[in-house]
């Protein structure tokens, strides 16, 4: 199994993602600079990590969505390769229109950094299958623009098509319909605001994030 983590200028969870994926799945992880226009061959998972890509200038994720590597990520996603955008990576995916909606300023205008309890809403996706009967997960959020927004029609469609993968049990930021993570139409692109990469072993307070990587890549 093989994964890649994209590194934008301003990413700060790229190394966390690499370690989290390696330890929870044993997969080999390549680090890919944002200026690359090609990805390594044979990838099973591409991760867009958390951070402040391009300083979050203009809007979080707006500049990163236009970087050369995103063309290759889009092509890979169209071929069915799993793509997971975590936190800032989720913002990049919405700005790139690879996922619907947008991430807006948190309702309380505060940076929220804490552990959150999640419901695994759909456990039959490429990113959640390993949760099985265990439909609760604890991960941490760390965001300023984490409130998911989409129009009512889009929200209904996400709900009706089983594309809401994770929901907050207690909404930390005003996210509509308590959305913490959604999938694209093909089911192979995930955006998730909480950090599975900060919850991959018990010493971090939770190992529930490891299940997400194991769902895509298999257990170590």
């Amino acid at each position, binding site marked *: 199994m093989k994964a890649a983590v994209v590194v934008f200028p301003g990413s700060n969870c790229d190394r966390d993602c690499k370690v989290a994926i390696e330890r929870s799945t044993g997969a080999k992880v390549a680090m890919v600079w944002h200026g690359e226009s090609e990805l390594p061959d044979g990838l099973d998972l591409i991760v867009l990590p958390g951070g402040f890509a391009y300083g979050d200038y*203009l809007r979080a994720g707006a500049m990163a969505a236009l970087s050369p590597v995103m063309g290759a990520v889009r092509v890979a996603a169209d071929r069915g390769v799993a793509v997971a955008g975590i936190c800032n990576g989720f913002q990049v995916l919405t700005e790139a229109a690879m996922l619907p*909606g*947008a991430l*807006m300023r948190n309702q309380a205008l505060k940076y929220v950094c804490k552990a959150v309890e999640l419901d695994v809403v759909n456990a039959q996706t490429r990113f959640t299958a390993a949760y099985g009967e265990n439909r609760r997960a604890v991960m941490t959020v760390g965001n300023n623009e984490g409130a998911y927004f989409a129009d009512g029609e889009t929200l209904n469609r996400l709900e009706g098509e089983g594309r809401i993968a994770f929901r907050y049990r207690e909404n930390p930021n005003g996210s509509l319909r308590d959305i913490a993570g959604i999938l694209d139409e093909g089911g192979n692109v995930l955006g998730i605001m909480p950090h599975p990469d900060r919850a991959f072993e018990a010493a971090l307070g939770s190992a529930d994030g490891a299940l997400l990587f194991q769902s895509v890549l298999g257990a170590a």
Partner: protein
Amino acid sequence: MKASVRVFLKPGVLDVQGKAVENALHGLGWPQADNVRVGRVITFDLATADQAKARSEVEAMCQRLLANPVIESYQVEIDP
């Protein structure tokens, strides 16, 4: 040409920043301030002489980058 783009959250999209500013204005003794919205203005020079063409270029820039059409609306001004 001088281009000026004003970007605001669409009507109906909750502007939490605008709300906070509105509450602060009320606290300072201006209870009559209502519907406060916070946006951004982006200005730049555009090396073209054709005003209509400049406008359509800037509109395209808004769609591609300057605004996020999912949540934001924009107004374009072009001055010679």
